[in-house]
């Protein structure tokens, strides 16, 4: 195999695996005569996907923007809190246990509470997306700061730099790869958050679409919603991975990582 063929194969592999997966699924459905209401064939899901594309798009769009807003707030808040925790041992010892306790709460449990406070609509979804994707960002940024090589800090200290200067010249650049690495995880979690909120009690978004479709025993539409979520999730993950690669080339010492 030449170098070229190897490269092509590497790019083609995920698509190949997906195709095999879908074909096996299709054959299994036909061969075992599984009723559509339990597990629709992928071709049928695809058909519904195309047929009801405009509706799907509208509901997806609702989910997408609530997720993104929650995610953006999580980045801003996570970065600030992560910097505070990483830079100060006092904030660390005070807040870290609380954060862990908070993270241990299943997020499904807070949706009903949110609905009491802010009602139904976009807001609970935004908040759930924020709450669930916030934690990995905080932890990663704080870790990035806490693991700065002491020598690197000494260089600045010996020049007479202030704490703020040390933070901006070493701390933040050093924490960036950790931040970007956490974004990939956080964006998928944000999707989980907003869809949970839509499913538990909402009147909008893909989660709601799936819920109402399954209430009508409309399995193909439910699955089409599932596929749509997966596509959005992968797409956002890819965007985050791309941003990561662009912003933190030094962390990989210029090597191309895929």
């Amino acid at each position: 195999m030449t170098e070229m063929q190897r490269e092509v194969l590497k790019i083609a592999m995920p698509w190949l695996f997906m195709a095999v997966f879908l074909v096996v699924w299709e054959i299994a459905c036909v061969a075992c005569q599984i009723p559509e209401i339990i597990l629709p064939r992928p071709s049928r899901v695809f058909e519904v996907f195309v047929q009801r594309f405009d509706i799907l798009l509208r509901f997806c769009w609702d989910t997408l923007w609530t997720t993104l807003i929650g995610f953006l707030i999580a980045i801003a808040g996570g970065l600030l809190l992560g910097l505070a925790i990483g830079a100060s041992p006092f904030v660390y010892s005070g807040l870290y246990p609380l954060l862990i306790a908070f993270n241990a709460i299943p997020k499904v449990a807070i949706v009903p509470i949110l609905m009491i406070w802010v009602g139904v609509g976009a807001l609970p979804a935004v908040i759930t997306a924020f709450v669930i994707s916030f934690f990995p960002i905080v932890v990663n940024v704080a870790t990035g700061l806490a693991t700065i090589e002491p020598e690197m800090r000494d260089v600045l200290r010996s020049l007479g730099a202030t704490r703020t200067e040390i933070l901006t010249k070493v701390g933040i650049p050093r924490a960036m790869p950790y931040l970007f690495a956490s974004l990939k995880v956080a964006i998928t979690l944000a999707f989980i958050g907003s869809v949970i909120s839509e499913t538990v009690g909402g009147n909008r978004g893909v989660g709601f679409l799936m819920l109402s479709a399954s209430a009508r025993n409309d399995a193909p539409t439910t699955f089409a919603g599932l596929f749509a979520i997966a596509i959005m999730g992968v797409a956002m993950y890819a965007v985050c991975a791309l941003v990561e690669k662009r912003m933190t080339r030094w962390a990989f010492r210029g090597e191309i990582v895929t």
Partner: protein
Amino acid sequence: MAFVELTGVSLTYRLGKDSTLALADATLAIDKDEFIAVVGPSGCGKSTIMKLVTGLLPASGGEVRVDGKKVTGPIKGVGMAFQNPTLMPWRTTMDNILLPMEVVEPHKRRFRSRRAEYVERAMKLLRTVGLADFADKFPWQLSGGMQQRSNLCRALIHEPELLMLDEPFGALDAFTREELWGVMQALWMEKRFTGVLVTHDLREATYLADTVYVMSRRPGRIVLSKKIDIPRPRTLATTFEPHFVDLVHELRDRIHQEHA
């Protein structure tokens, strides 16, 4: 009065119950614009002395004074080349070298307006150490010796009153090293600053210093202070003259006693 004064300075590293006495009793005085060298066996506390003088570590006992003032925290604006080149991987070599200009007064305030001038200054330094073509490369694209030379440029760029060099030529080949001795000497004769050089190379110490201090094994103390009475500028030819060779031998004999 001496510019840098260490009186009975000791230092113990502590980590939980574990403690290491790194430096037992260091007493030395460096005059203003004097260039001294510290030699001694590995692990005897040379790097530790550097950190004590610059205030990066607080002394466990004794007193460190710089410019008449007792050192209690990091002192401002020293030029320091650490033993391992601690360049920042997210900055290009040029930006790494410019770092002191972004932090040290008064350059800090005019950094933006005079950037071009500072870049030219950094380029001049890079040229003297033979790295002019690598200004835009990142540190991880440089060899170990090249990183060390950049590290030296960073220590020099703001023309500090006090220059601390911890084995700055350690990773270089003999030829580049000897060339840089010349560069260092010329710089010192032109600008006149107080210099402290830690090295394992006795010829290097003798070539560059006014006074060479020999340290004992850990826990370190100063066991010999030797004035080098060879006029400057010294050249490579100087290093083969009998008097120079005698001085090196004397230092070597003293260090051998430490290994005995």
